[in-house]
């Protein structure tokens, strides 16, 4: 058990070490001092306000990772989280702005809308896969392009808030009433820390992300659907023989994945109260990376979401102190991901070899008794 844990953690730790080595060489080769860059990043991250920023970024990243992981668990590659969350974000923002409800109804309604839109959009790829044999990787990539460069751009224009003057503050959909905005949870954090300064607000969606992570954990370990999901991923033929309907599982998994993806945009919505003209993009692809780095494990993905968020937020301080070119953080994300997936491959192989040896030894011990009987 201890050995396995050690082996499992050796891969990500090794990958991270390799990332540090490669990015240090890169920084050094272009004339920056890697240690002062890392030093700036760490001292920046030691501040409470930065930590709030990191948590605010880790929250959507984690939701995005869970969305991707649900598909990965059954070998479904939902590359379309990006399009699903932006589409869901836009529709939910518009629906939310048209309603005037008490807070207890308004917020859930917006979130359910987002989940339904995200799920439905991902479901298209699932339905195309099971009915027409269309590979979900290609279809979700195409659906991304259709959503982002087509449908969203069009609806954004249609739903442009009807103000006379177009300034940066009036662009976007009509703002949502206060009752539809997920409250921040600064108070909760301030129980443990000093007061948060600079007007930073810790997103309340953090609690939702934690709930989603726990729900994902229980889904996989305690629920029939989660078992079916994992069985279909591990061995689709055995799963089918065991009575798990493969087609329905594909559509259900895609829908669920898209529904969780729908929540990603809610973090930004709680902050901006509308679908802004230039929403944060790339969270869908980053979420895939976070899920892969965390091996689809609900707890490991927390760590990888925090790591990615830390790197994202560090870009700003590197630009300020000019210790290094800020794009280095994206390179670090890419390398840590690639190194980690390779390291996981290696550790899986080592593990298999160990198991084979263990089995062989156990068989060798029992064999003589078998002969004598």
């Amino acid at each position, binding site marked *: 058990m201890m050995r396995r844990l050690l082996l499992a953690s050796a891969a990500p730790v090794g990958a991270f070490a390799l990332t540090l080595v490669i990015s240090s060489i890169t920084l050094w080769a272009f004339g920056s001092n890697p240690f002062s860059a890392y030093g700036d990043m760490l001292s920046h991250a030691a501040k409470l306000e930065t930590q709030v920023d990191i948590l605010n970024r880790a929250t959507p990243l984690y939701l995005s990772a869970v969305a991707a992981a649900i598909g990965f668990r059954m070998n479904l590659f939902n590359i379309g989280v990006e399009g699903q969350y932006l589409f869901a974000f836009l529709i939910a923002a518009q629906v939310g702005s048209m309603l005037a409800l008490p807070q207890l109804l308004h917020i859930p309604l917006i979130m359910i809308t987002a989940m339904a839109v995200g799920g439905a959009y991902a479901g298209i790829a699932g339905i195309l896969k099971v009915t*027409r*044999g269309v590979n979900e990787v290609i279809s979700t990539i195409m659906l991304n392009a259709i959503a982002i460069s087509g449908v969203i751009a069009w609806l954004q224009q249609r739903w442009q808030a009807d103000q006379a003057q177009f300034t940066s503050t009036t662009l976007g959909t009509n703002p949502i009433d206060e009752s539809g905005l997920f409250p921040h949870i600064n108070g909760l954090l301030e129980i443990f820390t000093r007061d948060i300064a600079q007007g930073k607000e810790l997103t309340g969606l953090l609690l939702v992300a934690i709930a989603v992570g726990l729900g994902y954990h229980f889904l996989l370990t305690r629920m029939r659907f989660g078992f079916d999901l994992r069985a279909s991923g591990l061995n689709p033929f055995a799963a089918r023989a065991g009575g798990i309907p493969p087609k329905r599982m594909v559509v259900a998994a895609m829908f669920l994945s898209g529904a969780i993806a729908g929540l990603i945009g809610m973090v930004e919505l709680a902050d901006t109260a509308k679908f802004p003209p230039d929403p944060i993009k790339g969270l869908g692809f980053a979420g895939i990376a976070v899920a892969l780095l965390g091996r689809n494990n609900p707890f490991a993905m927390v760590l990888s979401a925090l790591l990615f968020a830390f790197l994202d937020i560090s870009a700003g301080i590197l630009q300020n102190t000019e210790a290094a070119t800020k794009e280095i953080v994206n390179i670090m994300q890419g390398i840590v991901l690639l190194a980690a997936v390779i390291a996981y491959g290696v550790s899986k192989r080592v593990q298999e070899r160990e198991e084979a040896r263990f089995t062989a030894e156990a068989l060798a011990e029992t064999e003589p008794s078998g002969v004598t009987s």
Partner: protein
Amino acid sequence: MGILQKLHALPAWIRWPLYALIGIFLLTVVQSISGTDRLTQVSTSREMLRWAVPIFLAGLGGLFSERAGVVNIGLEGMLILGMWFGAWGSIEYGAWWGLVIGMAGGGLGGLLHAIATVTFQVDHIISGVAINILAPAIARYLSDEIWASPTTSPRTSSVGDLDVPFIAGGSIFGWESPDVLLEIGKAEWWFVSDVADLARGLLRGTHWVAIIAVLLVPATTWLIWRTRFGLRLRIAGENPAAGEAQGINIVRYKYVAVIISGALAGLGGAFISTELSGLFQGGNSAGRGFIGLAALIFGNWRPGGVLAGALLFGYVFGLDLKDLDGTASHALLLVNTVVLGAVLVWALKRRRTTDAVLAGILGSAAFVWWLSADAVPSWWSNILPYVLVLLVLVFFSQRLRAPAKLGEPYRKGS
């Protein structure tokens, strides 16, 4: 024997031009009804070629990799590496070196993919996703370091283009040859002039890379289906265990195939930055690596098919670029109607009810839309290429044959 079988029996060099003529005839007819002239303009086919070349090169790269059994969705990332390295090489060492260095950059991405998937047996899609995340980051970082801007480079130099002499008015040693296609195009003969215009767009101002790309079709066909190298490469994708039993070093063939794959995508990227935009610009790949993958599937993993797919997708992209008022895309709705009608007839003959119903519904929808509007909004022409990819996959996914062991990890001696 039906018409389709008779067509299939024709040799390829007659069949493909014939398909093209049928396609142009359809466009001409639709154009006459619809009252636009953009469907068969010189600029339309020129734009088509400009879009199609990188799509084709990425798709052909995918062909090498997937024929050897390695799925490569990292093509987009390799294309982006090619864009950056191509621009850098072009600025530092000149235009042709730019293309070579762009290929090397893409090939480096391919090498990375090969190390992950072949040596370490990482899932092919996962490795591809990782490369697609890493490549743009590398490009941004290097741009920022070298050109002091994460998204744009200075001007690059181009290897230039060629006007085909005698047909499209190219000059030979300073003597200007006649421009036959221009004259035919000016004559405004129905259909004939349309063909001439479209051909002229392809043959005048033709990028050297485009010429190389088209020559790669017979070259690849020969290499993969007529040489020992190609046979072994296909064994790596169809039945690696049998190849291994014959003493073939499957790992080496997979490596070579994936590196070639990256180099071709890299050439496509270098073409985008040095020949089309004249500079490196982040985001200019416009997903053409992915579209190349779709062209590969559309083309049933064959070079000629990949080119056909790339030209088809390139046509829609190119038309969208020139179609500011939406009338040409509107006319395309009628083309869609006709094509879907043909699919409907074909499906009915084959008794494929679902196909027939689907084609019927989509075809009628396109027809109703065509009747009820004079132009389509710009967002529709923006997404049309992607919708087309989806439609093609919806109707043809089940009729295609991928290499047998595509995407399966190969372990020596198992």
